[in-house]
């Protein structure tokens, strides 16, 4: 009775989530009783459309300490490490806002799922090494009481990157750097390559680097579900909705050198529900932008890039969605079970899928051939004209193959230097980024999540120093260019 009376006093957007505690469980189970009472009232007074009580359990809470925009593997990883690195249990309230819980267009689940350490930047190698260790021990990290262990289907078959004459020197120096960081990579000459993988044609190959350990591919959907399950057990709130607005306040300040800057702080995040105009303002202290391919739009909502070009104010987040195709084909005489993920110098790559001579692969198009990212339709002509010839040249057995299916997914492509953006924005002080990884986000997600959580909780990177990946590099023009992009 009192609860109904109190609810009637509340305004339309103050959600009454029953009498449960904010941790999620309702101790008095009012919600079921409320809907029964509603039905009784409606049966007594038929016809009226107005009901004084409405169910708001689908709305996110009114307040949250951290709001993570985007529920893909990067967003969930940040949430996981925030909850894991907090000093006391239940210290931080985290809300993950995901627009589509079926993940139909998310980059995570449409990814090929590979993990490698063969990058040209030491930070990338460190990130992948930690992530490999995370994936190997995933059942210690993501264990939930009474739930079955996760089977990531990690195939540790390694990556084989091939280099032509021009790229051989760079590859050698990269491998040296990777070995220094602790990756186990071996260099092979064309003869060794031919001996090890007889199905490969070493024409045009001067050098090959083959990852021996911690490289391969796994099931990204399983990782996502494992993270979701663990996060639900740790008390992270999930919400299905779209972020449509940020309410922020600005203050004009002067730097030490006398320059005028406008610092912004986000106070509220408006989360709009699916297929309805209803929205919930979530008051928050920190916003994490992990929206993947759509991070650019979220950043624009927050006011990143509103200003004269050439200033920090006017530097946009250069992350845009780029469509990439993945084709699945069957080739009975194809490479066997030892086949790694082979990356041709021309840009085509393929890997084995399953045990029935099926293979996955694709190719990154050049800048001119970039397909329109408006939809996820697959262009089979691209395979016929660009991918197949290159594959057939590298692996002669692929001359006779039959394409079974294909799909397209987005890269959250960083047009500046194809590496991730991590850390806070210098001007919008409480927005942190964890996006822009241009195709290698899934494999670095666990380590990046930890780095962002450290940044939020401690104020600086503790384990892996990702200062080359901060946002301010877009303004200063310091590219952290990644050359080995697939």
């Amino acid at each position, binding site marked *: 009775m009192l*609860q109904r009376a109190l*609810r009637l006093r509340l305004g339309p957007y103050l959600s009454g989530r029953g009498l449960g505690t*904010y941790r999620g469980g309702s101790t008095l189970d009012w919600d079921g009783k409320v809907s029964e009472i509603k039905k009784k009232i409606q049966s007594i007074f038929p016809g009226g459309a107005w009901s004084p009580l409405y169910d708001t359990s689908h709305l996110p809470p009114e307040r949250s300490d951290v709001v993570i925009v985007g529920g893909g593997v990067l967003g969930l990883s940040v949430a996981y490490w925030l909850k894991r690195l907090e*000093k006391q249990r239940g210290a931080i309230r985290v809300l993950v806002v995901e627009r589509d819980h079926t993940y139909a267009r998310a980059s995570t689940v449409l990814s090929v799922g590979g993990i490698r350490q063969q990058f040209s930047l030491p930070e990338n190698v460190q990130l992948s090494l930690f992530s490999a260790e995370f994936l190997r021990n995933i059942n210690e990290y993501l264990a939930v009481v009474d739930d079955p262990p996760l089977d990531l289907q990690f195939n540790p078959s390694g990556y084989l990157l091939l280099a032509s004459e021009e790229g051989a020197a760079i590859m050698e120096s990269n491998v040296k750097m990777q070995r220094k960081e602790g990756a186990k990579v071996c260099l092979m000459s064309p003869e060794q390559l031919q001996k090890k993988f007889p199905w490969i044609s070493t024409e045009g190959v001067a050098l090959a680097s083959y990852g021996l350990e911690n490289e391969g591919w796994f099931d990204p959907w399983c990782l996502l579900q494992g993270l979701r399950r663990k996060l639900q057990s740790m008390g992270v709130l999930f919400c299905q909705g779209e972020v449509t607005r940020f309410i922020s306040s600005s203050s004009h*300040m002067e730097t030490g050198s006398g320059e005028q800057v406008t610092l912004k702080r986000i106070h509220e995040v408006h989360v709009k529900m699916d297929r309805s105009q209803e929205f919930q303002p979530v008051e928050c202290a920190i916003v994490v932008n992990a929206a993947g391919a759509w991070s650019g739009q979220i950043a624009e909502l927050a006011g990143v890039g509103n200003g004269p070009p050439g200033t920090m104010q006017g530097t946009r987040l250069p992350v845009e969605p780029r469509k990439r195709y993945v084709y699945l084909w069957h080739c009975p005489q194809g490479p066997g079970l030892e086949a790694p993920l082979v990356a041709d110098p021309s840009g085509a790559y393929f890997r084995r899928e399953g045990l029935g001579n099926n293979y996955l692969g694709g190719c990154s198009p050049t800048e001119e051939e970039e397909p329109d990212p408006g939809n996820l339709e697959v262009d089979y002509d691209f395979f016929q004209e660009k991918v197949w010839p290159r594959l057939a040249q590298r692996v002669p057995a692929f001359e006779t193959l039959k394409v079974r299916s294909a799909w397209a997914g987005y890269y959250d492509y960083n047009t500046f230097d194809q590496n991730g953006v991590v850390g806070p924005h210098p001007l919008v002080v409480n927005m942190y980024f964890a996006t822009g990884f241009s195709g290698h986000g899934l494999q670095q997600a666990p380590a990046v999540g930890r780095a962002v959580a450290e940044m939020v909780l401690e104020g600086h990177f503790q384990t892996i120093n990702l200062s080359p990946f901060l946002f301010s590099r877009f303004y200063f023009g310091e590219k952290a260019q990644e050359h080995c992009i697939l």
Partner: protein
Amino acid sequence: MLKYIIPTVMLMPLTWLSKGNMIWINSTTHSLLISLTSLLLMNQFSDNSLNFSLVFFSDSLSTPLLILTMWLLPLMLMASQHHLSKESLTRKKLYITMLILLQLFLIMTFTAMELIFFYILFEATLVPTLIIITRWGNQTERLNAGLYFLFYTLAGSLPLLVALVYLQNITGSLNFLILQYWVQPLSNSWSNVFMWLACMMAFMVKMPLYGLHLWLPKAHVEAPIAGSMVLAAILLKLGGYGMLRVTMFLNPLTEFMAYPFIMLSLWGMIMTSSICLRQTDLKSLIAYSSVSHMALVIVAILIQTPWSYMGATALMIAHGLTSSMLFCLANSNYERIHSRTMILARGLQTFLPLMATWWLLASLTNLALPPTINLIGELFVVMSTFSWSNITIILMGLNMVITALYSLYMLITTQRGKYTHHINNISPSFTRENAIMSLHILPLLLLSLNPKIILGPLY
């Protein structure tokens, strides 16, 4: 007494008839003036009490509490300005009216001469507080908090009504002046035991006693700033004040009945202090520290020695000011960062050095640093409990250590350390905030120069 009540009642038309941009100025100034007139109460003519009429009186116990109540209203109004700035004008006026109404009921409670009058007003103070918590609180949990707050107090005080009506039947009058002379020793029979329990439970719940304290963290955390201030500073002291009045006619049964409650309080004092060490929510930490300090007051009142009564009254005033100040500080944090989690707002000393000074002073008074009145209160209580039973000194000493630990923990987590990136653009301290803090700490520090005015009737 009408010289306080009528101006307080007239504050309500003042708010409703003021123009939009003048409501805060008008109400704050006039309530400040009223609080200054309350100092007249200090002029006590006799050792007994200052009787204004047959309905109202004040003695040296209720005087400091009254002055604290009236002093707190302008501070509450100043503290609420920011979070109400976005509400409509009618809502603001309603809020201020609730505060004024609460103030009115509290003044009348502390000066009530008749026990039934006291009881009615004691219950009446619940209504404006409930409205403030449930309508203007921050989160969904405030409904739960309001419910807990209301029903714990109501359930505790219903037996008190029964006992008071019974007493009225027996004695013919519940007027304090008359009751003092009627007092007969209560024999140890079952019905007297229940009457003792009935009289005391309402105040135990209000204090709160350790086992009945569940409503307090909820209510304090979910209430808006003025609600938290008045809850911590005054409403808890209503319980103490009531106990001090009611034990007058419950002797000598108290010596026997008080044991379980003393044990609960001693144990609870240490438990709640330890819980403070594990808190991540700033307001929750301050709420649990309130429980811990009030447990000391309960012990002091129940052992009924002159020293302990002096300690209890001093501790009530000191805790009122300190706790209210800590809530204001936590609120100033919350208004900037929109989060009550301590670790999300660290290293504030580099950004807001003056506010850090207030944090330091509040934490130091919270841990009962000499020569503040907090220490005087705690010291008196420790000494009297030592003479009551030697072993309690171990518990008291442990409590003082843990209190120091969590006060410093709170100070260091919020003020020291490397600042987080997302507090780069917090607005500097407003003059209003600095005024609130100084108006809290100034009486606290000045009272350490002349603590005898808060030591109560047994000085």
